[in-house]
């Protein structure tokens, strides 16, 4: 038992009393700087307990005299950010949609804000430049399935297409093949006629037969020349722009099983001012009407 203080005879420093195979550990004091840093940390902790939320007290906790809360800080920051943009956001909220583009300041602000929101929310389907993709329309051209005026675009963004929203844009193409409205040869003929609208039909006879079927089944929505009807979101078939593909196989598939793309209703996620900015941005992206 090392209860007596033993000093190392070479250095004069006392030992810890521990010995390993004849080696003894010196009991040097802690460096001064290290010790003061430790005391400073303890003092810091005490100050922290007073200023910030720290100690649990049963069902509650000490709130600290600064009243800090990360959520309260967030609300405050959001508020400050809103205030710093208030002159534009308030003006956009007040200005009717069709007059937004007439005001250079608001137009610039809307384009910048709209681009940011477009990149986060719309790009996954419509592509980084609004070029669209398989099943997602191109927004950078001047063809519009559901109308390309500012008001049309605004409504589409707000309520979506075939979305879970009472005012959503809705229409349903019949499943001509799957529900037995047309036979397979009839669908082939109709497809040939549809392709002939853009000069890609390879069977003039079939296209001729298809013209009759088209007139009976398709013109109500797609128009007598296949020019489409924006009110029901029926795309033009005569412009060479294909949402799902313009080869015969795909057109046959479309007629057989029908198509019905879905776009979410964004009024559930974004506020009205943001949707207005998005509408202006999308309108400007391609050829808004």
């Amino acid at each position, binding site marked *: *038992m090392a209860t007596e203080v033993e000093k190392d005879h070479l250095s004069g420093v006392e030992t810890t009393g521990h010995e390993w195979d004849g080696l003894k550990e010196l009991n040097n004091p802690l460096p001064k700087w290290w010790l003061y840093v430790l005391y400073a940390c303890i003092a810091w902790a005490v100050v922290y307990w007073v200023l910030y939320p720290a100690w649990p007290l*049963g*069902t509650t*906790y000490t709130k600290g005299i600064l009243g800090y809360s990360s*959520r*309260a800080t967030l609300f405050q*920051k959001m508020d400050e950010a809103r205030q710093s943009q208030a002159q534009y956001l308030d003006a956009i909220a007040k200005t009717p949609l069709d007059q937004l583009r007439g005001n250079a300041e608001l137009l610039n602000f809307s384009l910048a804000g709209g681009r940011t929101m477009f990149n986060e929310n719309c790009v*996954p389907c419509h592509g980084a430049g609004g070029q669209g993709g398989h099943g997602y329309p191109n927004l950078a051209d001047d063809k519009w399935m559901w109308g390309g005026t500012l008001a049309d675009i605004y409504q589409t963004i707000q309520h979506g297409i075939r979305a879970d929203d009472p005012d959503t844009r809705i229409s349903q193409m019949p499943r001509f093949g799957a529900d037995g409205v047309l036979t397979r040869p009839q669908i082939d003929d109709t497809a040939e006629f549809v392709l002939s609208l853009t000069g890609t039909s390879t069977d003039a006879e079939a296209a001729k037969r298809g013209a009759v079927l088209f007139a009976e089944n398709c013109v109500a929505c797609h128009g007598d020349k296949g020019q489409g009807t924006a009110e029901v979101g029926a795309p033009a078939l005569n412009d060479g722009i294909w949402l799902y593909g313009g080869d015969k196989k795909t057109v046959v598939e479309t007629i057989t099983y029908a198509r019905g793309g*879905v776009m979410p209703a964004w009024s559930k996620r974004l506020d009205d001012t943001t949707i207005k900015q998005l509408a202006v941005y999308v309108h400007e992206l391609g050829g808004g009407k």
Partner: protein
Amino acid sequence: MAHQDFHHRIEKNVLLMMVLVLITISIGGLVQIIPLFTIETTIEKVAGVRPYSPLELAGFNIYLREGCYNCHSQQVRPFRDEVERYGHFSLAAESMYDHPFQWGSKRTGPDLARVGGKYSNDWHVQHLIHPQAVVPESVMPRYAFLLEPLKFDDVAEHLKTLKVLGVPYDDDMIANAKADLQAQHNPDGDTEGLLKRYPKAVVAKFSGHADLTEMDALVAYLQMLGTLVKFTDYKPAQLQQ
């Protein structure tokens, strides 16, 4: 000196030392953990959060199995940049029925806490089959194999297990587990019971296949994420912890 004697005894008795080390570490742990159970504001009091529907639960299990949490967090932190990008910050209440929670700690892909309703079902299916087909710059692997049939004969057992862990599945939910799972995949069928037990559940033929696939379950799960709490009903002060 008596305390030195005591110290020597500890150093020379491995068992005693282990017991005392365990007690010391436990105090450190308990001081951090227990208050989270006792402090009333840890879990916010919000309406709408419910246990997962059976199909969503199957999707949750697939999410877990595929390790989605390795690249996707499910936690919108209370910072302006996150809130403006993803939506309202996540509440503890929103993940209180997750076992285990899916907060994650890595965002190779985006946060998914508010992904529900953000994209169409078709998009999710297309994206899971081949992510680069819709997002060319994505580094996400393909999950086309999820179009395999979903095994769900044991779904009621999953509900029962979670009930033991404190998830409020009632007898009605457990008895109807299999029927509810199938009902959520059949928009033309009777979904009244399902929607009464699990409000806001998204009913659809998610992957377009007649038979239930793992894809259906995963997309059903993704489409409800972050949609249960109606945040317009709460003032900021009510959500402070």
